[in-house]
């Protein structure tokens, strides 16, 4: 057989394609005659530097521009051929990974596998295509710039990370997106797009052996990378002091965003941080909702533990009710945070947060895309078992752990705070 069986765990089987070390995950689920297929590449904006920020994302767009087999001239344009089957398909890029996926009727599984195998090495990456696609991406960037909350978030990451590439947004800096040469994109493609730097994941109604045969048929002939995939080595040093900034531009509602550095996804404290994010902001009973929305200081609140390959951030964002001072909302949110350091979370509240996370995982299993997506994200930062083990990891967190973790990371020196202040309309405009 062309595959080495690696492990089977929680209904998921992992194989390695012997010819090129492609990692393969199969998750059978026959509730509906559809299948979701995803290829995750371990490359993202984390692998970029000044001059070519945004290249991973621009390259992702270029992978829709065709191969000698699938292209517009042949009448087999990639998007059109998937659309024709009624597929839900797309691709996206983030800090650590780039993913390509299709969910489609199961009699079209081979199309998805063939297409992904084909564009792994055979994409055109032509200069003429880059020129027209660059302006598409530039409009995507401009759409983002319309949103003050997004700009505030971008600046916050750029200040909190001074040295590590999480400093720049995945979409890239505007002049880099405009200026990056096609040869640089091609270099990116040739460095990272290889079977040994990817995981293929299949979830849905398929026959196990037949699915493996199709993967072997289409991915098998692709050689593994000629060179070692280059590791990254930039480390963000400790912050050593609070960073504060203000963004002023046209807008309607003020925003306060704050963030603290937290460790990488595989760190033992990740379970506690995931629970803190739920306790703070999921549902009406959550602490930020109660402290800021019930009291009419904010109209929207959020908390998010961003857990990546390298240390990430834990962020809070508060959209203020008109007339509320930024300082006041910040003070109240910090009181909520400080309380975790001095008082243990009551057992009942902790259990509620655990239930929310675990039921959310069960809901995800309703949809092949939900499962493929969750496994893909886990593969992007570490390993798919990280996702499968989330309930176990969360279940063993105690109130004492939460208190310790809050004291470890939620410190003033480790904090970055940004205010978005809507600019008043000037009278001569």
């Amino acid at each position, binding site marked *: 057989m062309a595959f080495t069986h690696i492990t089977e765990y929680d209904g998921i089987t992992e194989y390695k394609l012997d010819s090129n070390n492609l990692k393969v995950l199969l998750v059978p*689920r*026959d*509730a*509906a*005659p*559809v299948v979701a297929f995803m290829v995750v590449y371990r490359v993202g904006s984390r692998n970029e530097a000044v001059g070519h920020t945004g290249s991973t994302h621009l390259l992702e767009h270029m992978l829709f521009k065709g191969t000698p087999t699938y292209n517009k001239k042949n*009448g087999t*344009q990639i*998007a*059109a051929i*998937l*659309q*024709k*089957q*009624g*597929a*839900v398909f797309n691709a996206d890029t983030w800090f650590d990974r780039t993913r390509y996926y299709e*969910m*489609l*009727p199961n009699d*079209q599984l081979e199309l998805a596998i063939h297409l992904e195998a084909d564009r792994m090495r055979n994409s055109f990456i032509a200069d003429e295509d880059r020129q*027209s*696609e*660059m302006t*598409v991406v530039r*409009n*995507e*960037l*401009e*759409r983002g*710039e*319309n*949103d003050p909350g997004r700009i505030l978030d971008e600046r916050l990451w750029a200040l909190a990370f001074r040295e590590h590439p999480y400093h720049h947004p995945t979409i890239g800096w505007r002049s880099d997106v405009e200026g990056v040469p096609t040869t640089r994109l091609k270099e990116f493609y040739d460095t990272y797009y290889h079977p040994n730097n990817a995981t293929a994941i299949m979830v849905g109604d398929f026959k196990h052996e037949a699915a493996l045969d199709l993967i072997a048929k289409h991915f098998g002939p692709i050689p593994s990378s000629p060179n070692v995939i280059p590791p990254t080595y930039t480390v963000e040093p400790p912050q050593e002091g609070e960073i504060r900034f203000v963004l002023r*531009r*046209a*807008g*309607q*509602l003020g925003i306060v965003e704050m963030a603290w550095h937290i460790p990488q996804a595989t760190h033992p404290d990740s379970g506690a941080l995931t629970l803190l994010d739920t306790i703070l902001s999921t*549902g*009406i*009973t959550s602490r930020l909702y109660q402290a800021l*929305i*019930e009291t*009419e200081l904010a*109209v929207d609140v959020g908390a998010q533990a961003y857990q990546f390959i390298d240390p990430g951030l834990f962020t809070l964002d508060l*959209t203020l*009710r*008109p007339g509320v001072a930024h300082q006041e909302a910040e003070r109240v949110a910090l009181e909520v945070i400080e309380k975790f350091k001095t008082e243990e979370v009551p057992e009942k509240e902790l*259990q*509620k947060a655990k239930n*929310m996370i*675990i*039921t959310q995982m*069960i*809901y995800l*299993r*309703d*949809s092949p895309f939900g499962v493929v997506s969750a496994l893909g994200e886990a593969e992007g930062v570490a390993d798919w078992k990280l996702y499968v083990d989330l309930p176990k990891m969360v279940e063993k967190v105690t109130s004492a752990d939460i208190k310790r973790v809050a004291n470890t990371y939620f410190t003033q020196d480790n904090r970055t705070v940004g205010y978005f202040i809507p*600019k008043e*309309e000037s009278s001569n405009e």
Partner: protein
Amino acid sequence: MSDHSFAARTRRYEFPNGLTLLVLENHANPTVSVSGYLRAGAYFNPNDKDGLSSLTASMLNKGTARRAKLEIAESLESAGARLSTGSNTFTVSIGGQSLSRDLGLIIKTLGEELREPAFPADELEKLKQRVIAGIKEDQDETRVRAYERLTQLIFLQDNPFYRKPADHLISRIESISVENLREFYGRYYGPGSMILTIVGDVDAENVRGLLEEVFGDWQGAPARQFDLTETPLQVEAKVDVVQMRDKANCDIVIGHASRLRRSNPDFLAARIANSALGQSTLSSRLGLKVRDEMGLTYGINSSFPESGIGDGPFTIAVTVAPQNIDQTIKTTMEIVSDYLTNGIREDELRDEKSSHTGAFKVGLATNAGMASQIASAELLGLGVQYLDEFPSQIASMTKEQVDAAIRKYLHPEVATTVIAGTINQ
């Protein structure tokens, strides 16, 4: 009718008080999804009380005769269950999801919220302020501003699809009292127009028993009907600009009254006519030219965004940098004009047919997807069998039918164009 058909697998119950329950058992995962409707949407708002239906629906979970808001939320959230109600143009929609063992919890909570809402005054005040802030926030979005202005230019003020200006809406919302909510609730909330679809790891007969227990003796308001007249087509083309500050990107919306409802016999032909033109920004005619070839935009789509119970507009929406506005509008209009002249190509029609059939299958792959499709088929009077008949209805579509729909429903010659953004005039 095969044993695997949706019609054969879905149990439909009509209760004496008018409530319609549809249950589809799917034992693949220990979860259940709930989807439903009541005819109590914005259409029924009194003239001077815009926002009333929306506030009423959003207040249902803010306290009942038995429990305060926090107590209700605590019981649902502790089980990881979700339940929501919200108002649309014509209906109040109900959505929920839980582990199958907690179905009783969400149905009983829904019963309590629908039958015994308390409408506490302090909660109404908080909700009003939050809704008003949301309206203000939306006013910062080019997409919202362009669409809003389009509806103001093509519909009369009493049309259900006319979007009221933000200042007007805010002042009306400020004027709404608990008494207004009680009165609206009393007139429009009842089992007579209620549809509830439940899909998941459940036993249909047990679900029927549960609904009997929770809603069986509910009387409430009688079911109301919609009295809709067709919106006339515009008589001339117009252009308008919504000037905003600090926007790198503009939103352009081009549109006119669609006169297309789900009950029109050529609805599916119109849907195919639209999708070949602009449903997908990556592969439809507009996207292939304006995005893929010319690189002018990240997104361009055409749609009948409201066609269902009522008609609403036909729109083409596209985002561009300010310097590309003229070229984008010109190219878009040329594509539409060519489409009108020459109609759909045979290969496009073939591809759209397989696309619609495949997408329908993919959309029905989850409990939530099935629940929402079944509820909507019931609401629109199509019946569950629609889910079985859809593929053959699509397969039988001809070029003549689609071309006729293109000519009937696309009218660029009288379209209104609205551009929202930071524009140098």
